[in-house]
């Protein structure tokens, strides 16, 4: 297959704090009118003196066209999801989100809503939330949902809080302080309950199957078990077919089970949390349900629970009382609020439209296509020099597949970080290696969800084949990549060095000798 010629735009754009000049403005705001000044006085007087700044913040000073030009250039230097074949970001489910759904968000009926409006004036959006919850109940088998959490990890944290509250109500929290997860579950299944105060036990995968061993779970459970938080299929694309037995063992020990459904794109209409016995679950609406990833912003981790745990949900919950929709704050054991107001409802509106456009059959088709695409990609990848699939004895992968470039690394010195940097020279986004630790050495983890055509997959795989061949002929090309990008290879060790990294401009200046 002929690969596309590509070169990124290069603007050598400075950081915005280095641009503009003193006094330059985008908008000149006129002072308050005399009448207002008289009525309210000096605005600064409203800020307690101890909270007032000694001098104004050093904000960039730029005119409007300069701001627009700057950010457009940055956006054009970015290899965005919509301009490339975004198969490489396994666990992220980079699917196409229909642009028409953006129109819905711009309708004044939605865009002009205020979260403090009385519920009788927002019946429309409450109806959408309630109806979408009904879809989610059908998809998962759970009995009630909340959409408050603002992302996947937030959803997992919410579930950890429900587990904590449950044992507190039972009077066993002092004793039950351990959460079990698996090493190939999303790391948030360990990090979130740890943040909620639990100790974490991870089950290491079996070397042959890549799955956690049921005997390992038996060694982990005890009277201290508070629960289990598990992703399935795990972040290898391998589905644990004995998940119901896992759940039963944890239940027998007195723990609750939370299903991390971040990888649910392969399961619509095929497998549900309820039948596996789970007490609760969470979905990433910004992944499988076609809302763009929020980049730590407007995403949604939808949390669903069984009836027995409905009392523990964050408040308010949207309910229907036969004549209208209202906000129910009366949950006896509620963990409180997961965040202000009702969550990122723009994600819910998009997801609602997406589900409506597909229907039940369409959703199942999404999953079947995702599984088919993954296994087609595996076939196409075979024969790529230096590439092997992890856990080859597992015949089928669902939503994603973990490969290893260990052989390529040993033969040529070109490792997965090099290949990941090299793929961008062919106009596709840098890929995701995998979460850490690298149990599979030199990993990469493509996830060709239903968005991608056969030709897209062929093209993406051809890039990997090409880079591997090239690595054997001349390893320096990949090691010094990228060559056709906006920026060249950067020293990643620097990002790891507290003496040199900087999260803010002020920290940058301080650490690099220009500070105050």
């Amino acid at each position, binding site marked *: 297959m002929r690969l596309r010629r590509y070169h990124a735009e290069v603007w050598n754009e400075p950081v915005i704090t280095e641009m503009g000049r003193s006094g330059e403005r985008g908008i000149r705001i006129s002072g308050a009118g005399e009448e207002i000044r008289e009525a309210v006085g000096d605005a600064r007087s409203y800020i307690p003196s101890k909270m007032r700044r000694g001098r104004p913040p050093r904000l960039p000073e730029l005119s409007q066209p300069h701001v627009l030009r700057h950010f457009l250039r940055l956006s054009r230097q970015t290899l965005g999801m919509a301009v490339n074949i975004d198969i490489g970001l396994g666990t992220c489910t980079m699917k196409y989100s229909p642009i028409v759904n953006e129109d819905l968000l711009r309708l004044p009926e939605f865009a002009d809503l205020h979260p403090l409006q009385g519920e009788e004036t927002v019946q429309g959006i409450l109806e959408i939330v309630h109806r979408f919850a009904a879809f989610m109940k059908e998809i998962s088998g759970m009995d009630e949902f909340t959409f408050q959490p603002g992302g996947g990890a937030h959803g997992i944290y919410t579930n950890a809080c429900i587990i904590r509250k449950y044992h507190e109500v039972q009077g066993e929290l002092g004793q039950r302080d351990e959460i079990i997860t698996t090493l190939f579950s999303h790391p948030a299944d360990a990090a979130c309950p740890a943040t909620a105060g639990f100790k974490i036990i991870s*089950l290491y995968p079996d070397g042959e199957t890549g799955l956690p*061993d049921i005997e390992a779970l038996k060694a982990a459970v005890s009277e201290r078990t508070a629960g289990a938080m598990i992703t399935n299929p795990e972040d290898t694309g391998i589905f644990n077919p004995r998940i119901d037995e896992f759940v039963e063992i944890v239940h027998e020990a007195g723990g609750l089970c939370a299903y991390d459904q971040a990888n649910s794109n392969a399961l619509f209409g095929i497998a549900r949390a309820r039948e596996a016995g789970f007490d609760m679950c969470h979905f990433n609406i910004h992944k499988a349900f076609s809302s763009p990833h929020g980049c730590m912003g407007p995403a949604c981790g939808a949390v669903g629970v069984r009836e027995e745990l409905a009392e523990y949900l964050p408040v308010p919950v949207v309910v229907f009382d036969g004549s209208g929709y209202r906000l129910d704050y009366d949950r006896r054991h509620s963990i409180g609020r997961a965040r202000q107001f009702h969550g990122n409802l723009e994600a819910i509106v998009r997801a609602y439209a997406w589900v409506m456009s597909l229907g039940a059959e369409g959703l199942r088709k999404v999953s079947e296509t995702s599984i088919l695409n993954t296994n087609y990609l595996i076939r196409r990848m075979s024969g790529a020099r230096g590439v092997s699939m992890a856990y080859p004895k597992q015949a089928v992968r669902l939503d994603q597949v973990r490969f290893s470039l260990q052989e390529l690394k040993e033969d040529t010195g070109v490792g997965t970080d090099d290949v990941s940097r090299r793929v961008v020279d062919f106009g596709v986004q840098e890929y995701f290696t995998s979460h850490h630790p690298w149990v599979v050495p030199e990993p990469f983890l493509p996830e060709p969800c239903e968005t991608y055509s056969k030709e897209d997959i062929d093209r993406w795989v051809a890039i990997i084949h090409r880079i591997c061949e090239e690595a054997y002929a001349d390893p320096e090309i990949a090691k010094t990549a990228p060559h056709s990008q906006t920026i060249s290879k950067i020293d990643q060790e620097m*990002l790891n060095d507290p003496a040199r990294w900087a999260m803010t401009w002020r920290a940058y200046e301080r650490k690099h000798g220009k500070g105050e």
Partner: protein
Amino acid sequence: MNGGSLGTPRRTLGLIVNPTAGMGGSVGLKGTDGEEILARARALGAAPIAPARAMEALREILPMRDEVELFTSQGDMGEDEARACGFEPMVVGSARSGRTTADDTRSDAREMLRRGVSLLLFAGGDGTARDIHEAVRDRLPVLGIPTGVKMHSGVLAINPRTAGSLAVRFLQGKVGVCRGEVMDIDEEAFRHGRLSARLYGYLNIPCDRRMVQNVKIGSVATEREAPEGIAWHIIDGMEDDCLYIVGPGTTTKAIMEKLGLEYTLLGVDVIHRGEIEALDVNESRLMGIVRGDKAKIIVSVIGGQGFIFGRGNQQISPQVIRLVGRENIIIVATESKIVSLKGSPLLVDTGDGAVDGMLRGYMRLVTGYGKSIIYKVS
């Protein structure tokens, strides 16, 4: 000691090749330590493998040829390999004729130390690592190109090419140092079917954090910090009415450091209520201390092959283990140590089949504060 902080390029490299390392392996001699065994290996037709493997590592460093000053031992102990790769090395050590010995390795290593090389590369196995350790201790960063028969030590790279690329990253100032174990078994005993392994000490080695940590995420605990988390986890869970038998190794002894106690890095110490009960105990002393009291054993994973009992901690004998009980064994391990086992189970070889059998199955490994992993013991 480690040739400057991160970010500072290091400019001198030492190389010592043990040209006979690994020769005993192909002819089934379980090692090549000692003149007589080497002669037998030669008689059985063994050919040197170390020079070729050393060159494989050197070729990774070749692009830095003009920036790095290379010191090597004489002749086939490094000089020949370096020249064959295109380096022009400075030769250290006195001229010698005939076959090289462990003494040559030690004296050349001392010479490298005196010259102040930034990093000493050696090609060999456990025996060579011991010789280097004897000469330089922790005064010099060292990295092994693996060519030996016995390779239990944690100072050897996984293969020659990795040794070369890690050396490059170290010389460029991109990686720091951490400690790696020097382990060896008694070859003579091993040939007679007895396995006696010892932990001889620790060398400073370049630390490749990429094994465990995404270079793009800086906040994950580094290898240096991981044992601290483990130590505080153990300390916070300590019970007053319990003796703690602390096995050898840096991961376990971090507990002693945090408690502000003296300790025996390579031996077994006993503590009670945060105070020392006994230092560097042998088995009979241990049995005497424990008697019928409640006790827990804290051990770490020793060496590259994943032993938790029977290598380097034989003081904790089958009798002691039986007395303490399986449920009172605490295994500590950093995540990188576990990942480096590549899925192989942890191993026990206490010398008592029944005790080994009792230890098999899944056990919990403490990997950080409030963090553990369930892993198989075989």
